[in-house]
């Protein structure tokens, strides 16, 4: 199945980060995306005034794997060790709606035609929501790169944006994937060791404690938020079943409201939490890298002392030590900068999203009222066997709204 989104939709697809496209010298967005089976093809569109690019305005098709490649390339670049690399966008996951669609297909025989259509519509809406979400997440990734003073100049990034042929040659093959998996394991083991190192800088000490704590809490919150929105969806589905049993007229009714509340909530709260969960991981990675250099520095110190004792290869050891120190300082400096701006970014993003979420809830609760009464008018119509005119219905509902406002 293919589906596309258009610009107006995207305006509404609320982004998790804010003000990312401020710098007009390099504007990136994903105006279009195609979904085929499992693969999503994004159209990455760049508008730039920078001379480093060949054209001022161009688009390229990219797949999810290309994004991952870019992310990994950035992570592996030594120079960026002191920076928070924006987290890679998660793989598009259509599993849940697809499974539901499958179940729906199986249960088709037991439902009335209307019910089936409604459920199908709901599922399609859900599918669309997942789709929008994944596009947005990929877009944000790119935009964060483009708004970062250092990362935006990265050569790989430029290639990603510009190279108009398939990037598949660059992607990881199985060996590399396995290699990176192994590296990750080593890294986590290292992390544990590193966290034991005495921190010299208060700022970083604080940050470390905070991030560790916060990251576990946010993981927890994300999981529960997901559960909550899933339950909400269940309730919405029930409303569909109920209202279809009521032979509803073809008006907007309760089900769409409840369903939409669930999927919009998904976009807001859960997404917010999920995004920052990943972002915090990226920040933790930065801390880890810095801690590594600290460890290296300490090791080099020890080596220097040993060398001095033995009076052998002192110069080399000294140089090594100097290098380590330099690296450490560089990382500390840029790390401090990054983490501070990260904090600011996070606060702003939370604020924006919480506000939007609250406003959305209010809006939906208001509509929900009329929706609820609508579906129950219909119920009365059915249960009482009366010919209830549609017009009277809407008249009463309008007055309901008016009294609500």
């Amino acid at each position, binding site marked *: 199945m293919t589906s596309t989104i258009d610009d107006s939709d995207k305006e509404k697809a609320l982004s998790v980060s804010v003000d990312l496209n401020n710098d007009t010298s390099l504007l990136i967005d994903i105006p279009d995306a195609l979904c085929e089976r499992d693969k999503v093809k994004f159209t990455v569109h760049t508008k730039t005034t920078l001379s480093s690019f060949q054209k001022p305005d161009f688009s390229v098709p990219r797949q999810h794997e290309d994004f991952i490649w870019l992310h990994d390339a950035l992570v592996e670049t030594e120079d960026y060790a002191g920076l928070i690399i924006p987290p890679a966008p998660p793989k598009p996951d259509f599993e849940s709606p697809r499974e539901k669609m499958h179940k729906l297909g199986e249960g088709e025989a037991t439902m009335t035609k209307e019910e089936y259509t409604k459920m199908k519509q709901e599922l399609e809406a859900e599918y669309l929501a997942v789709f929008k979400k994944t596009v947005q997440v990929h877009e944000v990734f790119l935009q964060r790169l483009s708004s970062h003073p250092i990362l935006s100049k990265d050569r790989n990034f430029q290639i990603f944006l510009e190279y108009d042929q398939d990037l598949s040659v660059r992607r990881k093959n199985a060996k590399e994937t396995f290699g990176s998996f192994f590296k990750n394991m080593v890294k986590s083991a290292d992390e544990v060791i590193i966290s034991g190192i005495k921190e010299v800088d208060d700022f970083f000490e604080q940050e470390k404690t*905070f991030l560790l*704590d*916060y990251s576990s*809490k946010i993981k*927890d*919150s994300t999981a*529960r938020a997901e*559960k*909550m929105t*899933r*339950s*909400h969806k*269940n*309730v919405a589905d*029930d*409303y569909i079943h*109920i209202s279809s*049993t*009521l032979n509803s007229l073809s*008006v*907007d009714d309760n089900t*769409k409201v409840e369903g939409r509340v669930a999927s919009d909530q998904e976009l807001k709260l859960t997404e917010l939490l999920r995004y920052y969960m990943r972002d915090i991981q990226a920040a933790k990675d930065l801390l880890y890298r810095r801690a590594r250099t600290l460890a290296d520095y300490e090791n080099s110190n020890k080596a220097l002392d040993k060398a001095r004792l033995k009076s052998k290869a002192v110069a080399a050891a000294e140089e090594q030590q100097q290098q380590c120190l330099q690296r450490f300082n560089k990382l500390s400096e840029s790390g401090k900068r990054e983490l501070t701006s990260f904090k600011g970014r996070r*606060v702003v993003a*939370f*604020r924006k999203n*919480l*506000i939007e979420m*609250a*406003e959305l*809830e*209010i809006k939906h*609760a*208001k*509509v929900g*009222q*009329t929706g*609820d*009464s609508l579906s*129950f*008018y219909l119920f*009365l119509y059915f*249960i*009482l*066997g*009366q*010919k*209830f*005119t549609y*017009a*009277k219905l*809407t*008249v*009463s*509902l*309008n*007055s*309901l*709204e008016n*009294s*609500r406002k």
Partner: protein
Amino acid sequence: MAAEMEPPPLGDAGQTDFREIEDGEGFFVSTVTTLESPEPSSPDPPSMPAEGISTNGPKQEDISLDDDPEDLFAEATEEVSLDSPEREPILSDGPSPAITPVTPTAMLTPRMGLGTAEMFERSLDEIEEDDSGDTFDMHIAVSDPEKVGDGMNAYMGYKVTTKTSMTIFSKNETTVRRRFSDFLGLHSKLASRYLHIGYIVPPAPEKSIVGMTKVKVGKEDLSSAEFVEKRRSALERYLMRTVKHPILLKDPDVMMFLESSELPRAVSTQALSGAGILRMVNKAADAVNKMTIKMNESDAWFEEKHQQFENLDLQLRKLHASVECLVCHRKELSVNTASFAKSAAMLGNSEDHTALSRALSQLAEVEEKIDQLHQDQAYADFYLFSELLGDYVRLITAVKGVFDHRMKTWSKWQDTQLLLQKKREAESKLQFANKPDKLQQAQDEIKEEIEELEGKVQQGEKDFELISKTIRKEVSRFEKERVKDFKVVIIKYLESLVQTQQQLIKYWEAFLPEAKAIA
């Protein structure tokens, strides 16, 4: 907000003619209330009790469903005329009592015989309504479930309070204690007496071995408390329905049940007793019979009604199942919301930016309140809605039973008639027989039998007609009751839904400035 629903292009007639209730708060606006209705006092609630939560004004008039020929909607739009010809005679009377979310009683108003009488088939209903010299004024409450006894012999005793001003009762207010099997006993007596002549006897709440055992064993947990509450309210509804039936009300057993302090223990209601087994056997026999009787339906009304009830039965069952599902999911939602609230609070605690931290804690609080809301909504879903549906599913089974009895009566009549015919044939055969000595005797015998049978046939026919007539009355009564019942409950339910939404709005609106205050 109206964007979501697009009213059909009916012109502005519908909107402008619509007079809203003065305080502008009524949410089911009904033009009926603003007219000088010729009907006697709609029992408006004297004062709206402290339902502070409900900001809807006191005039919760019902949804304007009736297409009254006197046209209380004169000023409303053309749609009225669309409807009036198609109206069925089962429409309810004018505005039913305004809804108070407090008491579950719906009062039958006495004004049915008045102006709206044209709507009903006079012959049927007037008789019934004019029957009771009193106005129907009865309120039965079942309360104070108390466990009596211990171990497996324990049972729940309920207090039954009857408040009435009707003259057939000896006192204005009576209180007795009854147990569940007493209710069942009452029902079985009424059923055996009235079902087969066509009266729809409201079914009693079902036995539940699991539920009762939990209570007996003394498990003091939430589910057994819920079970007791469920049963209590079911018993109350059962009694109210029973007394609303004018014939059943006058039954001596009912009066005894309500008034006498001691009641002989109804042993035959036990599941495994002799009577219980007999019942099961009878049920099986009935089912078989039903399949074999092929009735010649001469009356289209019955045909139609039968079909209608079958449909209704199906739909109600389906709806009931869906609503139970909804209750379940809503409970789940509330649990998950609560757990999210806790985790958000923790997140807020570990957040070092003060404003954001405060906002997150606020969010946690909001979610907690919402969880409570969801819980309450779930209870409303359940108690109001789902139970009602369950009741009606069982009621419709009773109705179908009544139809079946009619079939049986018909078949009995037909059988007697057949027998009579056979005897007549035998008689005429005898005429041509050649045994003169036995002839006289045999002829006399047969004459006797024939007379007897003729009497029986006549009786059978009368029975059949009586039961048909009774069923007609009962069905129309049932429909009226059904309309009323559902209206009351639906309105309450809708109210609760709207209230929930309102609360949601309030909570989120309170949260919004906090979110905005994050600097």
